[in-house]
């Protein structure tokens, strides 16, 4: 029915005629704005009236105990999970709750998953090629050509992620850590306005952690970054605002030092020691 009315509506602008993504409007401040978001699974409240804003160009760390709802929060932002109540805005123009995953992705929200997910049958190079910012509609994709510029970009990212030598390997045979890097690489190829990075350094050596931290810091400013991590050393090295989630809502917020002194945070999350 809706299809018919869509077809007969003269005013209607078909999706495939509209430009891929209209610009994000950040004149009024935050790039991401979540308010009173609640999600429950079979009665269990994974996110509980969460309110959170991320400013344009900000690098924000989110920490919190296992099961605090960090990944779920990212699921909501990227359209994977629909909240029961609340609102989520990207800039001041886009209501993310009315959009589906590809639309949100083409708005410029990129994501690295907690469990690395890459296209196992494709090579590292192809994985990056697919992630590249481009017109992702069907026919443009069919006729897309890889220009020199694109290649350079891919080479650049390969270098950044240390995967040059593996570029023709199928992604399925990579080790865990290598997949992590590949996913980060894919995120970079997308050139998103907002990066959601879930546990980027799990399985990385100290050195690599440093490199990752540098990378993320260098992105901040141009792009907004949200990082979830359990490695306190890493979070500290990013040295930005930290938000602590607990049982689906914000427990504390501030600099790393402030937060790590908060007794509640110490109790539920940090513990003594490290």
């Amino acid at each position, binding site marked *: 029915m809706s299809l018919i009315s869509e077809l007969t509506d003269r005013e209607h602008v078909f999706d495939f005629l509209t430009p891929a993504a209209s610009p994000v409007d950040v004149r009024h401040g935050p790039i991401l704005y979540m308010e009173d978001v609640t999600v429950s*699974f079979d009665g*269990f409240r994974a996110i509980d009236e969460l309110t959170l804003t991320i400013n344009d160009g900000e690098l924000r760390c989110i920490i*919190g*105990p*296992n*099961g*605090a709802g*960090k*990944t*779920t929060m990212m699921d909501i932002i990227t359209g994977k999970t629909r909240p029961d109540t609340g609102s989520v805005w990207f800039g001041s123009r886009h209501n993310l709750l009315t959009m589906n995953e590809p639309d949100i992705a083409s708005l410029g929200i990129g994501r690295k998953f*907690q*469990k690395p997910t890459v296209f196992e049958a494709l090579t590292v190079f192809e994985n990056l090629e697919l992630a590249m910012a481009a017109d992702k509609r069907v026919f443009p994709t069919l006729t897309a050509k890889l220009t020199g510029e694109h290649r350079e970009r891919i080479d650049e990212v390969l270098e950044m992620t*240390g995967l040059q030598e593996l570029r023709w390997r199928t992604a399925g*045979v*990579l*080790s*865990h*850590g*290598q997949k*992590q*890097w590949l996913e980060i690489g894919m995120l970079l190829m997308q050139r998103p306005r907002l990066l959601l990075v879930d*546990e980027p350094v*799990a*399985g*990385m*050596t*100290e*050195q*690599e952690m440093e*490199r990752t931290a540098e990378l993320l810091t260098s992105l901040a400013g141009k792009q907004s970054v949200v990082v979830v991590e*359990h*490695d*306190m*050393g890493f979070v500290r090295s990013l040295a930005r605002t930290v938000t602590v989630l607990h049982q689906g809502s914000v427990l504390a917020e501030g600099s790393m030092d402030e937060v790590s002194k908060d007794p509640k945070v110490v109790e*539920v*999350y*940090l*513990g*003594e*020691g*490290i």
Partner: protein
Amino acid sequence: MLRIDGLNQYYGESHTLWDLDLDVPTAKCTCVMGRNGVGKTTLLKCVMGQETVSSGQLQYNDEVALTERPVEDRSRLGIGYVPQGRQIFPLLTVEENLRTGLAARRDKVRQIPQRIYDLFPVLHEMKHRRGGDLSGGQQQQLAIGRALVIEPRLLILDEPGEGIQPNIVAQIGEVIRRLIAEDGLTVLLVEQKLPFARRFADRFAIMDRGRRMAQGGIDELSDDLIKQYLTV
């Protein structure tokens, strides 16, 4: 407890482990380190029998040649395994996930030891939730709990702290130490995070490109070695 001699392994054409020797002494925690993709996980899989070995010896408990035993027997011999990437059974409930380990126990215990719930209260709380619904860290806890259900003599851990909140990571370390001290448990650990390794391991071994490059007591782990093998 476990002695590895001249281990070679191939993924199809590509030679991954090269003449690898490794000693895992009883009632000690041995930590294997190395950069991404050097073959740490592969080594552990060989011990568990998840990958086939092309040559070399795996001597368990001085008498058992592991390579001659079917995969299922290894857990019955008392080897517990926490793989990288959790590998829990996503559609089984948390409790059922734990119960899978009971098959390997020789003492006919058919109850999940209370100890595990004490260690990871969240598992008790979420007993009836499907494993796949848990958060990443909860899954990791489940994976460790599941390995402990069989009351292992040798516990193999592949980056166990990954994705787990700091206080629980510390707690896991503590428990490992306690088991080593009280029950004489042997631990083979793969870990990238130096502080953790330094704090909880007794011995270390460093791998590079499928070969073991160095080993020794954890205090012998020098900055030189770290620089040479653990940085890019």
